[in-house]
């Protein structure tokens, strides 16, 4: 028995012959070469510089799957028992690469084309034109500005959510009932919220809220004024997602060490003091997680806007996603729409990275 190497993780020792190793490598490189050659040939065919090719790209997909299968099989052929362990992860990794990396690369290519679905030419690379167009697109910048307001609104949502979590963590009667009630909005689809609240309860003529305002002598207007319209969108979105933050914060509160709180009480700390000095600092990690996830949700805000205001009045409520939706669905402007989405993705990655860095520095914890 071999007593060298990693004995803890080795079940059996393989004696793999060189010819077997060569076979495995040949399988991988052979199928890879086949796949690449096929893809190259198809690219040349599609560009009109070759007469032989396939009608669709499906055969290249099959070649890729053949390569992936050969790669998996080769792990065992070349590495034996060790290769079997790799097999636990490799198919999943290949799957992720297929469904995330390839589409992302394809999207990157598309975003530098002028692809309009109605165009008979199909996608044609157009250099930096889409970026220039984006730079001069007041609708996009307007939507980005709106996103700043929407993201800032998360701070208010956080305060409300924390308050509700404290309330539901306290010894109040019917606590379980209120926990469920406060969670209900989160269970509703934002589309349902759009119609139930935005298009029905806030309907200017016969919506119940409008009637109450009119009965009180006021003239209701919810989506006619840019500022009020933006606030109403924020309010509807907040109503839906505050329970999400609340439930996370509530879980954090329940996990707080009771002995620390009891000790503060023994030391004579007031309610405000124990919140300020103990609860809030201890809750910071949970708070940061809740706020960051909420911001990520917020950056995707679109459904309520699309259903209630379509971005109006005059773009006052437009989010980047709702604008891209119009660019994509209504105008079939795939190239430009994809570029906007890619730029937005980059902005989000930068923003969230900076946010996490700042938070970790503030909390003096490694990111």
């Amino acid at each position, binding site marked *: 028995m071999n007593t060298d190497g990693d004995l803890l993780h080795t079940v059996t020792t393989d004696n793999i012959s060189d010819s077997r190793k060569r076979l495995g490598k040949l399988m991988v490189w052979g199928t890879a070469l086949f796949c690449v050659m096929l893809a190259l040939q198809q690219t040349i065919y599609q560009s009109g510089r070759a007469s032989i090719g396939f009608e669709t790209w499906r055969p290249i997909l099959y070649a890729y799957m053949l390569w992936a299968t050969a790669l998996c099989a080769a792990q065992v052929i070349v590495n034996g028992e060790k290769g079997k362990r790799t097999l636990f992860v490799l198919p999943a990794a290949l799957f992720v690469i297929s469904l995330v990396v390839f589409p992302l690369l394809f999207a990157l290519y598309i975003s530098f084309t002028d692809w309009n679905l109605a165009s008979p030419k199909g996608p044609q690379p157009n250099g930096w034109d889409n970026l220039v167009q984006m730079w001069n697109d007041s609708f996009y910048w307007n939507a980005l500005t709106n996103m700043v307001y929407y993201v800032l609104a998360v701070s208010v949502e956080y305060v409300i959510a924390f308050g509700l979590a404290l309330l539901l963590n306290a010894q109040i009667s019917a606590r379980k009932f209120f926990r469920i009630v406060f969670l209900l909005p989160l269970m509703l689809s934002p589309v349902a919220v759009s119609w139930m609240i935005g298009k029905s309860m806030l309907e200017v003529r016969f919506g119940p809220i409008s009637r109450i305002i009119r009965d009180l002598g006021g003239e209701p207007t919810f989506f006619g004024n840019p500022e009020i319209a933006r606030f109403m969108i924020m309010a509807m979105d907040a109503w839906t997602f505050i329970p999400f933050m609340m439930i996370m914060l509530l879980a954090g509160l329940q996990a707080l060490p009771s002995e620390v709180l009891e000790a503060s009480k023994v030391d004579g700390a007031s309610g405000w003091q124990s919140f300020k000095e103990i609860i809030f600092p201890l809750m910071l990690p949970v708070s940061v997680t809740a706020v960051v996830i909420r911001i990520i949700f917020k950056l995707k805000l679109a459904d309520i806007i699309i259903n209630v205001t379509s971005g*109006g009045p005059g773009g006052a409520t437009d989010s980047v996603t709702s604008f891209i939706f119009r660019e994509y*669905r209504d105008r079939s402007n795939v190239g430009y729409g994809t570029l906007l989405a890619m730029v937005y993705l980059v902005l989000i990655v930068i923003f969230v990275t900076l946010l996490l860095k700042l938070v970790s520095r503030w909390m003096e914890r490694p990111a």
Partner: protein
Amino acid sequence: MKVDLYNYIKAAQKMNRRQMLKGSAALGAAAMIPKTALAGGHGNVRAEILKIPGVGAGSPTDSDWQKVGEMCLGGTKGNVSEGEFEGVELTFMGLNNQNLHNFLFRGFLKPWEAYTGAKINWIDLAQADYNARLQQSIATGTADFDIIEMGAPFEGDVLGKGMASEMPEWVKEQIDMDDYVDYLKAPVGTWGGKTYRVSIDGDCHTFAYRKDYFGEGSITGRDVPTTWQEINEVSKDLIGKEDPLTGLPAHGYLDPLKGWGGFGFYFLENRASAYAKHPNSPAWLFEPNTMKPMVNNPAWVQAIQDVMDLIDAGAYPTDQINADPGTTAFQQFLAGTGSMLMWWGDVGSNARTSDTSVVGDVAGFGINPASERVYNAKAGAWEESRNEAPNMAYIGWGVYVMATVEGDDKKKKAAWSAAAHLGGKDLSLWASAYPSGFQPYRNSHFQYDEWEEAGYDRAYVEDYLGSNADSYNHPNAAIEPRIPGIFQYYSVAEDELAKGYAGQYGSAQETADAIAAAWEKITDQIGRDSQISVYKASLGM
């Protein structure tokens, strides 16, 4: 017929017991007649199918659709022998709105399948998914269907790219195309002089108004406006007055000021067509030789200015800036807010049948209002003459056979036979009289005697459907360009209009210029030369 229209007519007319019994007796008698006799006896078929299931006898079901399909097989039998398409499989892509469209087609075509031996596979799509699915199929060249139910605005995308099969002569004869209302005749349904479309529907916007707002002693004290200038005056005069029905503030014309996925632009077109659609040219959106937008010419600017003036005057209901066409029709006009509106057939039909409608007894109809002057784009000057130009918004649904059947004569004939069956003269009469999702679109559909005999109230049918007929056959009907990406133009225009209405542009001219600039970009992106050629083809030039 649109479902709501059917319900409306049922509610609007006063059908007595005797009429009901007449209908039932006739239906009973029809059931005893051999099917072949019915199918063969052409003159008889029209009267007999209108009794299935009978007006006031509940909504038709699948068995009714199959009965109608069976009785209307005469045309098919004249061109196809029994079992001729044995072994042929066709795929049909259409809508499933309101459980109509494809649902009816299945029933209509079941007897056709039994007779011809062909088999049809179905792709049902929701309206919201339809455009994206079709655009993707077009863009990727992956038409996985042989027959499609499609709106005429997409003809530029599909016919312009040679994706459809040309209609054979025998189909033209079978469906009697001469019977189409004028605006559905060529160039609609044709491309490059070739015919592709079997029409199964017609569409236009008609004028709906509140009778209690007009006439002697009414809140306005004047006749129903017939021009946009009068409409604007009335709308301003009504500011501060009280609605006679609801007691809430009175309002005049209801312009939707919010976009609606491109469809909202049709409503600015309603105003603009009277100003911009000069009888001397079919073009009113683009100049045919250059694709230069006409949307910023004085006629269109006038239309935008009208709306801006009414906004400034405070003539619209509160929050109108957030009102899309659906809101103006169903939450405002039908609910008693506002007195004038342009819309498709649904508004008239919902007036009496919808639970939220309060205007059923006071709704009147007409064609798109005229203008006291018209802009002559060729001369670059206004002409002081009255101009009417009904807006044929969306042009209606048709059945098209795809080029996928080319190269297989048997399959091609089968596909066209199925399309011809659905667009048959008799079958279409039934579809226009009962809930189907389709409006009348043939001159023969407006033979009111047939409707009366079937049990409909003649006065109402004449009044309401008459406004459609007058629009369809108008010599200066404004027909939208069937060019690729037409809804892209509409959609971007909606965004710019929203900015203009919100006061973000300095004037109507600036707003119109912004639309024109955006349209130019789209034209360049799709390809100006190809757009010019398809635009000319769509105009029959």
